[in-house]
């Protein structure tokens, strides 16, 4: 049997804080009492130093564990909240993932179905080239305070590696329709959406377009609606998936958890996030119908293979759900989204201009966290250096690249600084030693007094270091996150 294109691996990333919808509603009840209808559950929120790029990097790392990164032919990043309008955002992800320069990168944007469209393209590309393609999707959503979207949305990222060979799910077919149905829009240069009436969107848009397209698509794929085991509809509104399933003839029990109660609608990333969640529990020979909705829709029908049972079970979304940290600090959320102008003090005014020349020269060390290893002694150092800090011998050309991002670290010392400016005080930083060598001074991410201690293991995470607010340039670097103690 000829090898078919399909999914080789998947990954996901959900930021650890879960803003309680009741806390959002409590702030707005005086103004928008109707929001009480959706003030249940929680939504994932990116920390101040996370955006669509950093979350995509984490999802990508989750996906690529054990995969030879040199085999990847291309990387796409789907999002409608990319930090740069003209600087390939996927290119920054490529540097952080330490992929070889000889790889194609592409930003895919402009619609909530950007990720499913990119996934279809990638599957077609792999059919032509037979080389793996990495599809990433991430969204750090921005909504106006007191809007329904503010409660329903969530921040997350997901990754799917497609290719040939031992796929865990093969593609049975894909289908797209394009219809300029303007349920909401965001003009170029704007940060907030403008939405039309939700009842019209539900009835004329989601239910009508999806119901019809799914029925047509399944007919074309040669699959009966009742044979779908998991129907993945990334729409958070109550009742929509039920109505779509009914219209298309799919079984009600095939409707997959849309993660609305626990993470929120992560926009363009949501279809891939739901796919990662479903694959985490799927058995062999299940049929998954993945849907992307936005000015039309995309359908992808996957069927899991025996390989999914053979490979070690991975459940990144379930793990993220288990480890969310409830958060009731709505003001902090507003501040981190730039929607509340707190007095930050003069220390926040520090110059953050990034010389492009310096970043280019050091891009592998800065964006890829690549240190150097002395080929004679095996000693590792970061930042990479020409002369060994251990021997002091000035012998040129004896150091080789040594990636550190995926090596665990151990906290040597740390501090809790209440003087230095941080958007999320206090600022935690200190010194870590990497397993296998190398020492580094680091800022800590996702840290609290209860999670940080000398000797604690930490893992490196790609984060925003600072933002040059004068020139609107985001600076990225790696931080160390204390690893949760096993329960």
């Amino acid at each position, binding site marked *: 049997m000829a090898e078919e294109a399909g999914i080789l691996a998947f990954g996901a990333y959900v930021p650890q804080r879960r803003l309680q919808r009741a806390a959002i509603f409590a702030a707005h009840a005086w103004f928008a009492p109707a929001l009480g209808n959706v003030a249940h559950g929680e939504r994932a929120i990116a920390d101040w130093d996370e955006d669509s790029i950093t979350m995509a990097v984490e999802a990508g790392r989750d996906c690529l564990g054990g995969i030879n990164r040199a085999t990847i032919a291309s990387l796409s990043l789907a999002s409608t909240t990319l930090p740069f309008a003209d600087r390939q955002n996927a290119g920054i992800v490529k540097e952080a993932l330490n992929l070889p320069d000889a790889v194609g990168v592409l930003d895919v944007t402009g619609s909530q179905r950007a990720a499913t469209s990119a996934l279809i393209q990638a599957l077609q590309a792999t059919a032509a080239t037979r080389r793996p393609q990495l599809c990433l999707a991430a969204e750090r959503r921005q909504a106006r305070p007191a809007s329904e979207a503010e409660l329903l949305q969530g921040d997350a990222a997901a990754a799917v590696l497609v290719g040939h060979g031992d796929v865990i799910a093969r593609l049975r077919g894909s289908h797209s329709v394009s219809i300029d149905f303007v349920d909401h829009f965001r003009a170029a240069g704007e940060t907030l959406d403008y939405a039309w009436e939700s009842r019209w969107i539900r009835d004329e848009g989601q239910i009508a377009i999806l119901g019809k397209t799914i029925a047509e698509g399944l007919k074309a794929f040669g699959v009966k609606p009742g044979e779908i085991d998991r129907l993945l509809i990334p729409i958070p509104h109550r009742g929509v998936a039920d109505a779509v399933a009914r219209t298309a003839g799919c079984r009600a029990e095939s409707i997959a958890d849309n993660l609305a109660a626990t993470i929120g609608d992560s926009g363009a990333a949501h279809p891939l996030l739901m796919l990662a969640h479903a694959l985490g529990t799927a058995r062999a020979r299940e049929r998954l119908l993945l849907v992307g909705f936005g000015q039309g829709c995309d359908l992808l029908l996957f069927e899991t293979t025996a390989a999914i049972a053979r490979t070690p079970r991975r459940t990144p979304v379930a793990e993220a759900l288990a480890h969310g940290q409830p958060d009731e600090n709505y003001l902090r959320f507003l501040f981190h989204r730039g929607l509340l102008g707190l007095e930050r003090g003069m220390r926040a005014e520090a110059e953050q201009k990034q010389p492009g020349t310096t970043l280019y020269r050091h891009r592998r060390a800065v964006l890829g966290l690549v240190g150097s290893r002395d080929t004679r002694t095996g000693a590792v150092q970061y930042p990479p250096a020409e002369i060994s800090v251990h021997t002091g011998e000035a012998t040129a050309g004896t150091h080789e690249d040594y990636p550190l991002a995926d090596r665990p670290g151990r906290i040597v*010392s740390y501090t809790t600084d209440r003087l230095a400016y941080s958007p999320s005080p206090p600022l935690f930083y200190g010194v870590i030693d990497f397993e296998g060598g190398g020492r580094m001074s680091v800022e800590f991410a996702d840290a609290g007094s209860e999670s940080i201690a000398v000797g604690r293991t930490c893992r490196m995470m790609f984060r925003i270091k600072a933002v040059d607010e004068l020139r609107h340039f985001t600076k990225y670097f790696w931080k160390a996150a204390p690893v949760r103690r096993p329960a």
Partner: protein
Amino acid sequence: MATGIRDRVAILGMGCARFGERWDAGAEQLMVEAYSEALADAGIGTPQIEAAWLSVAFDAINIGPSGIPLATALRLKDIGVTKVENYCASGTEAFRGAVYAVAAGAADIALALGVEKLKDTGYAGLPVRSRGTTLDMIGVSGSAPGNFAQLAAAYSAEHRVQRADLKRAMAHVSVKSHANGAKNPKAHLRKPIDLDTVLNAPIIAEPLGLYDCCGVSDGAACAIVTTPEIARALGKRELVTVKALQVVASNGWESQASEWNGSYLHTTRVAATRAYAEAGITRPREQLSLLEVHDCFSITELVTMEDLYISEVGRGWTDVLDGTFDADGALPCQLDGGLKCFGHPIGASGLRMLYENYLQLLGRAGPRQRRPAPTLGLSHNLGGMPTQSVSAVAIIGLA
């Protein structure tokens, strides 16, 4: 083989401006204030100064680049003026330049002046500044208290000192310096404080509270140096000479090699060892009369007692609590109030420490004069942070 600096250079005169929040004075006024005192003490005129070194750390918010601001303020006519910067150890670095010039025979009389005008930033604490285009991309955006708080954490861990015990020892350091500073008319902070005030102060960077941190001050200090022969020819009867002068800078070993445990200052240990050898000191705790150390934070002073081989490693905190370094203790430290209370105008601090030791050696320290009169004083001037530091140790004494 190098023979060292011992007794080859004498201090002809010293001066120090009043430290503090000098809203009334700019860098120029502070420099002139310190220099006028030194010049009168030396008994010479400006034309006799043949070379000058200026130390300043935050030049951008201060006097600007180069040695020209010093030459201009003091109207030093047609001589070489060099600006030096080595973090908070800059003051001793300027002194080293002047002393080496005299020892080398390149100048008969040389000037070292340190100045810092810190209170033009608009906020408390040290200004935020760049560490260069490369380190800014990967360095930590921390503060000085945060960096030295790690020293406290590592010291506690290494020597199994309970937090409460260390807090008490650190508080003792600050209470002692406030008591000393109260007797110093030029000091920035002149109010005695009690232990509870220190222990109950807000935390700046765990475990360092407000009173574990030194003052951020404006100020200037100055030394005029020459050879012992010229000093005597100019009528000086009692001479203070340089016994040792050592500066050591980190090469990345602490921050990159995974061998240092964070509980001490490597550069201080090396600089102290070399300085004692240069000065011929074998039993520092008995031979030294007084200490001025870099107490940017209380924990730094405590750990420095070990790094200078005054206290046994791991026992500095008990020596502190025993009162060893109090004004009436066996080896007084910071008789002038130290960085904690005299204040810390960065570029001036190393020279300010030398100024206090100089006054004490000559019996000119007024109500805080140590009796019997000291014969040998050590100053320890530290720059940077524990992970990357510059340590300067200077020992001066009666000839």
